[in-house]
């Protein structure tokens, strides 16, 4: 959802990868080459106790495991109260890549039938907070909730896309979830429990299905605790912590130890602090002020999930020395020309826009060369498929060449265009700079800053097609495979409907390209497949100009001086991993 850890890759099969070994550890450390500053100097032996405070400027939309699709909540949910079959291991430094490890299951899954059937066996001794055992049926029930698309909204749809249940003519599943129970027999056939072993039958081979089940949407849920929509903030734990009292929106809550959790069943979560509190009533600006000041209880705090806003960057190196970290963000910020606009239905105009784009201005606005780099690839440098496409006309762009193109296209200058961006201080400045380049090329740019809450909703609204000519957007892969970038953003078949463009905001609709996506998905060899995704990326940005990649930036996080062994887990959503953190007394 939003651009924080993004939307579902619906239906059409991902990875026909048959090689399980290709999965999981695919990422190469920050291809930018700049090593992340290390934040956590080891300070002795971890001790139990104390309170770890999470300072947040972002409202939690869902705690219901099946409705969680924002990276920060996926990570927290998994580390605190919702164990999943497999998960990403912890890391000992901010640059280390995490490995896929077994969590509630005894191993990372057994594929058979060429990757079409997956089986996971649960560990013994897993318990809910009321002492009852976590069973295979709890997992089966939990995953079934994803199918109740009218109640359980917001979560990823990987289950619907992958699990072998026939679809109706309109693309929806014939199973309607555990509340309506329509098609329950179909689900019971596709997902089976025998003893402690849960078996999934998939529509087609998915080589990295054991990566997919790291999402809390594939976690367990107790049927007798299910209140449907009302379960959104009801937390029923099977992990090391449980919620004390209730969760208060825009305020937060306190997690305390769950005495039913048996550390012997868990080699990931160290659970050092006695309590973990979350305060989400703050703003990114204020919470970083507090972390820099490092007074009182804030010494026991970490920023979660907000990264330092551009205005805090200047103070953090001096003010929070040794307590901050800069890591590559998983996102690529890009510009989408709208194929339905009069101007950008013309390929020459799209090319002109790409040529006149001044990425240097964006880099400056995003915090300078050390924290942002211009890019011309949709795929993030951290992914193996990163094609490193050269910039079309250097960092600053070439307005003169762009102008020539516009004239060649027979357009009357200036060409009026309206460009939207998500309104914040950084993008205000970045787009003021971009506008100068575009205007110099003969465009007459009108900028529309749209508040963050409405931003992606506006892009996905069908009315926008006739209102705006180009959009800013950002996207990060769901897990280290470029299949979670190219397909969800540019496959018109899974995106464009009467209800809007989905994530294909610019209505890019190309049959050959769609066929190429299918062909790439079918490549068995992981390395070859990732390279093919890279080639498709190059096509998009240099042939169709369906997207104009802008920059990749770094996230800067800070923590209080008492917090030890908190490392950013780049593989697992890219925030501080609370599993290993402890508080010095």
């Amino acid at each position: 959802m939003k651009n924080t850890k993004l939307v579902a890759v619906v239906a059409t099969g991902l990875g026909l990868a048959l090689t399980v070994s290709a999965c999981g550890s695919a990422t190469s450390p920050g291809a930018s080459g700049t090593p992340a500053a290390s934040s956590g100097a080891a300070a002795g032996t971890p001790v139990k106790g104390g309170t770890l405070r999470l300072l947040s400027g972002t409202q939690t939309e869902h705690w219901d495991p099946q409705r969680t699709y924002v990276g920060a909540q996926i990570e927290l949910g998994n580390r605190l109260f919702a164990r999943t079959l497999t998960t990403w291991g912890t890391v000992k430094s901010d640059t280390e890549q995490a490995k896929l490890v077994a969590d509630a299951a005894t191993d990372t899954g057994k594929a058979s039938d060429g990757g079409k059937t997956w089986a996971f066996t649960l560990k013994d001794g897993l318990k809910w907070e009321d002492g009852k055992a976590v069973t295979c049926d709890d997992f089966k029930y939990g995953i079934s909730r994803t199918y109740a698309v009218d109640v359980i909204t917001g979560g990823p749809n990987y289950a619907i896309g992958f699990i072998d249940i026939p679809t109706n003519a309109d693309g929806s599943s014939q199973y309607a979830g555990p509340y309506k129970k329509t098609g329950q027999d179909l689900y019971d056939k596709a997902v089976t429990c025998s003893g402690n072993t849960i078996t999934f039958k998939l529509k087609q081979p998915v080589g990295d299905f054991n990566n997919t089940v790291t999402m809390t949407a594939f976690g367990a849920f107790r049927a007798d605790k299910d209140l449907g929509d009302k379960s959104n903030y009801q937390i029923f734990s099977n992990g090391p912590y449980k919620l004390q009292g209730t969760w208060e929106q825009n305020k937060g809550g306190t997690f305390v130890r769950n005495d039913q959790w048996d550390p012997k069943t868990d080699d990931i979560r160290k659970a050092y602090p006695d309590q973990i509190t979350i305060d989400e009533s703050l703003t990114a600006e204020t919470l970083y002020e507090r972390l820099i000041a490092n007074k009182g209880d804030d010494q026991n705090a970490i920023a979660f999930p907000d990264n330092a806003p551009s205005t805090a960057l200047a103070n953090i190196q001096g003010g929070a020395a040794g307590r901050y970290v800069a890591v590559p963000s998983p996102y690529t910020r890009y510009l989408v020309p709208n194929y339905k606009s009069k101007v950008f239905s013309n390929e020459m105009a799209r090319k002109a826009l790409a040529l006149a784009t001044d990425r240097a201005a964006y880099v400056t606005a995003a915090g300078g060369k050390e924290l942002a780099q211009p890019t011309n690839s949709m795929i993030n440098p951290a992914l193996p498929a990163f094609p490193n496409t050269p910039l079309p006309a250097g960092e600053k762009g070439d307005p003169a060449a762009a102008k020539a193109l516009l004239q060649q296209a027979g357009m009357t200058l200036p060409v009026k265009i309206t460009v939207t961006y998500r309104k914040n201080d950084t993008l205000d400045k970045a787009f003021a700079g971009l506008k100068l380049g575009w205007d110099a090329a003969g465009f007459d740019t009108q900028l529309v800053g749209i508040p963050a809450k409405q931003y992606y909703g506006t892009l996905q609204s069908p009315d926008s097609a006739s209102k705006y000519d180009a959009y800013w957007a950002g996207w990060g892969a769901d897990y280290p495979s470029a299949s979670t970038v190219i397909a969800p953003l540019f496959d018109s078949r899974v995106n464009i409907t009467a209800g809007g463009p989905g994530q294909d905001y610019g209505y890019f609709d190309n049959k050959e390209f769609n066929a190429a996506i299918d062909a790439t998905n079918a490549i068995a060899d992981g390395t070859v497949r990732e390279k093919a995704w890279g080639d498709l990326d190059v096509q998009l940005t240099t042939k169709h100009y369906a997207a104009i990649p802008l920059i990749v930036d770094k996230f800067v996080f800070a923590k209080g001086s008492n917090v030890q062994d908190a490392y950013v887990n780049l593989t697992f959503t890219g925030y501080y991993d609370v599993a290993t953190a402890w508080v010095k007394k």
Partner: protein
Amino acid sequence: MYPRLYSEPAEAVCASRDQRGAAVTTGLGYSAGTDDPMAPAAPTDSVRAIQGLSPGRLALRRLLKDRVTMVAFFVAIFFVVLALAAPLLEAAKLIDPQTPHPELLGGWGSMPIGPFGGVSPQHWMGVVPATGWDVFSRVIAGLTVSLVVATLAVMISVVVGTVLGIVSGAAGGRVDALLSRVIDFVLSFPQTLMLIALSTIVIDIIQAATGAPRTPASMAFMICVMGFFGWPYFARIIRGQVLSLKQREFIEAAQSLGARRGRIYFKELLPHLWAPILVYTTMVLPQNIATEAALGFLGVGIQSPTPSFGSILNDSVHYARADPAYFMFPGLTLFIVVLSFNLVGDGLRDALDPKADRQ
């Protein structure tokens, strides 16, 4: 046709009470000089000083003697001229609020290199973090935007307030009662809250209706709202003036001669109201400039990258710790602008209504 003193029906009394006025005055509004048969045939300098002065001249004299006001006046004029000239200066490339200077920025957060936010011979007030825009140019360009908004808002307040004030005061009866309630009603709205709550929606409506870009639409919104909430103050003061003026003989004379209402309102009454209008305009103008800045600071109204005091301060406050100069320079300029206009307003009031601060 000279200005009358709005709180003083008889200018004679007023003038005689003035202690800073001319050393010797007759205290009367008409000349007591050379027509007098008793006057010496060849008047000397000292005799000329005895000449009577019109209230306007008296006021001017008081004004000229008030050194603080005069300094403030010239400062204010300087800013007005600067604001008017800004578009020309921009066209002549003497100021440049939009060209980025990334080469002057460095480090995390793209902060200005050098002391005081990158002050240099080319950039007198330094440069803006994360873009390298010239702060001095933006302050001058922002002055134009802020002054345009403030002035147009005052004009709306003055026109609406004066017309309704005259009508209310002169007509009396039901009309007066109705208008007075309307004034109470408008005054009871919390203006700042309204501005903040309504801004997004109303600006969207203005944009949809006129197809104007964001900046002119938000300027129009600020002007309308500040103008709308400003007029009742004018209306109240004007009404009070009119209530006393309408008892005067020249009004009765006009009425008995059969003058129409319109004539009485705008030909007879209006010319006697210039003083309070002038004084209140000079006092509300800086208030509007400050309001625009305060609202911009809160993120309402004119938005970056269009410079105005509000949008500049809104941006600079985020850098208050890392680059205090970026906040100080525009803040100081705003302070001087508002102060100078306020002092001019105060001085005008003293000069035109010497009684007001001497009671």
